[in-house]
């Protein structure tokens, strides 16, 4: 049986169920690296070019980890675009090349091009080419991809119930996740999935705010049509897929009565974030909003202080609007 490695980073959080099902259906075994830990982060920082953002550096660490594991192939797709007229951050385009240049001793790299900006013909061609590594039966390849898509949609539906993509993948794999708790605040949490849902990169911000009594609302829990409709109100169309999703989700949450406040998690050194964070901050009119920038530091004190202060503010604001009496002094 052929072994294919899928690094546990970047678009793993969105498309792992698809590719895992695809490779499994073709009779291959899928190996992934463990969830991000400090050894992986350290290895990534050491290997990667220093101008990239933290999630990409961490991805290098995952690839490095996987290399030690006797693989036949490693799957590092070249992501250009996942929908018409929209693009993924340009750094992703260069990831397979950057990795080949910096990590020696790689197993054969599968770097199919995923570019749906104009047509899906190229992707179809690439998928068949990819499938032929394992079988010569075109029908089996088509079915494997179809099955992959089904599993992907199933996982997306799970995320719609309030799981983060990382938790949804774990549920999909059979480990149940408990996200119930006593929540008295409703908090919108936005950010690129590969930083927000990676518990190491985001310093576990999702569970931190849950522990502070906040029910977390993520872009995946919002209605997709309303996200697009809200994003279309921006004078110039945002052509980054994830950026547009964030702007749309923020504006959508801004109008929802049940949401108390919003936090945007940005990565230091992320090009799109430097614009998207700013656009959101300016466009939000009705809700308290906080921008948190994360980088390589491990000191959690600053993050905890800001989160606590934000939750305190939401609670005290609500208490004052309910009884209209100052709660102190």
């Amino acid at each position, binding site marked *: 049986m052929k072994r294919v490695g899928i690094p546990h980073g970047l678009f793993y959080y969105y498309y792992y169920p698809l590719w895992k099902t695809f490779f499994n259906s073709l009779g291959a075994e899928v190996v992934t690296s463990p969830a991000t830990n400090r050894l992986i982060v350290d290895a990534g920082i050491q290997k990667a070019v220093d101008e990239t953002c933290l999630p990409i550096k961490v991805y290098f660490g995952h690839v490095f980890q996987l290399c030690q594991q006797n693989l036949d192939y490693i799957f590092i797709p070249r992501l250009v675009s996942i929908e018409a007229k929209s693009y993924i951050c340009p750094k992703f385009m260069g990831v397979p090349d950057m990795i080949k240049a910096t990590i020696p001793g790689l197993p054969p790299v599968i770097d199919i091009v995923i570019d749906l900006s104009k047509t899906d013909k190229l992707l179809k061609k690439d998928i068949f080419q990819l499938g032929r590594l394992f079988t010569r039966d075109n029908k089996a390849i088509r079915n494997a991809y179809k099955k992959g898509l089904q599993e992907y949609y199933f996982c997306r539906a799970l995320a719609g119930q309030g799981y983060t993509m990382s938790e949804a993948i774990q549920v999909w794999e059979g480990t149940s996740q408990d996200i119930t708790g006593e929540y008295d605040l409703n908090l919108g949490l936005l950010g690129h999935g590969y930083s927000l849902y990676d518990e190491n990169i985001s310093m576990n911000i999702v569970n931190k705010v849950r522990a502070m009594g906040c029910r977390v609302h993520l872009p995946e829990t919002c209605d997709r049509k309303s996200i697009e409709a809200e994003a279309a109100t921006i004078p110039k169309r945002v052509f980054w897929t994830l950026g547009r999703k964030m702007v749309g989700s923020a504006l959508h949450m801004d109008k929802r009565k049940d949401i108390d406040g919003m936090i945007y998690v940005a990565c230091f050194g992320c090009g799109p974030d430097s614009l998207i964070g700013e656009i959101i901050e300016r466009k939000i009119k009705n809700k308290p909003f906080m921008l948190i*920038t994360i980088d390589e530091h491990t000191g959690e004190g600053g993050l905890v*202080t800001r989160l*606590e*202060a934000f939750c*305190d503010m939401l609670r*005290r604001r609500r208490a004052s609007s309910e009884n209209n009496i*100052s709660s102190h002094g």
Partner: protein
Amino acid sequence: MQCYLGVDIGSVSSNFVLLDQLGRLHTKIYLRTEGNPVNAIKEGYARIKDSLSDNITLKGVGSTGSGRNLAEVLLGADVVKNEITAHAVAASHKYSDVKTIIEIGGQDSKIIILKDGIVNDFAMNTVCAAGTGSFLDQQASRLNIAIENFGTRAVKSRQPVRIAGRCGVFAESDMIHKQQMGYPVEDIIMGLCEALVRNYLNNVGKGKKIEEPIVFQGGVAANTGLKKAFEKILNASINVPENYEVMGAIGAAILAREHIEQNKTTTSFKGEKFILDGDFKTSSFECKGCPNLCEVVQIKRDAQPLAYWGDRCKKWETSLDSQCRLKIV
């Protein structure tokens, strides 16, 4: 008389206050933390105790500042709150109609916007510490001026020089240049104050609506030059409360009183024997339980471990259950 103790353990200073039941200040103590918060807490408490007369009983303890958790372990605080809430509570206790709080401390600076006595919005400096107390401290010692005299020298200036305020390092080289050109020292330090204010307003106060009444507090408010620079640039009058340097501690004490009175509980203060007679030691070790290799901090009183923190999985933090912690008292 019944009193409440407020403790603010910051990066540069540790402050202690005793408030009576009506919120009047009884004692205040301002100490330099000098990198040793455990000692600062012990010494601060010893000094508070000296000022206690027999008829005073301690009804509650509140802690804040970056060392708030340490203070909680050593003293047994009833309320542990972040600095934003503590400062806001203290300021609106003193000035009930305050709308803007400017707080500049040793390592961080914040702006708090209040509406009807409630925190409505806030911001803290992000990754850069330019424009905080530490930077002023450093420049004062470079110019060989005691930091206490910095403000009085600054206000003597007639024609402040323009110094670049974007970055602390650039401000310093600009300042050296102006100094070598022969500008008087007073004009340079007033220029530095104005650069700091511009930096603060551009970074921390970015996009915030600064409305009067404005309160300026934190250790840096001692600097009359900065107060003057804020008044000039904002074209508004700035209030510096009498106890500007201990406002965080005052807020913590008020919050402790609020907590005790609302919940009708008694204090969890551990008693003076616990603090003064024990020998507290902190140590750290690398947990080898998983590849995250967290640096765990341990606090011991004599041979008895009191608390652990720094572990992501909370394995150590929860290893001492509350039962065991209570027994020591």
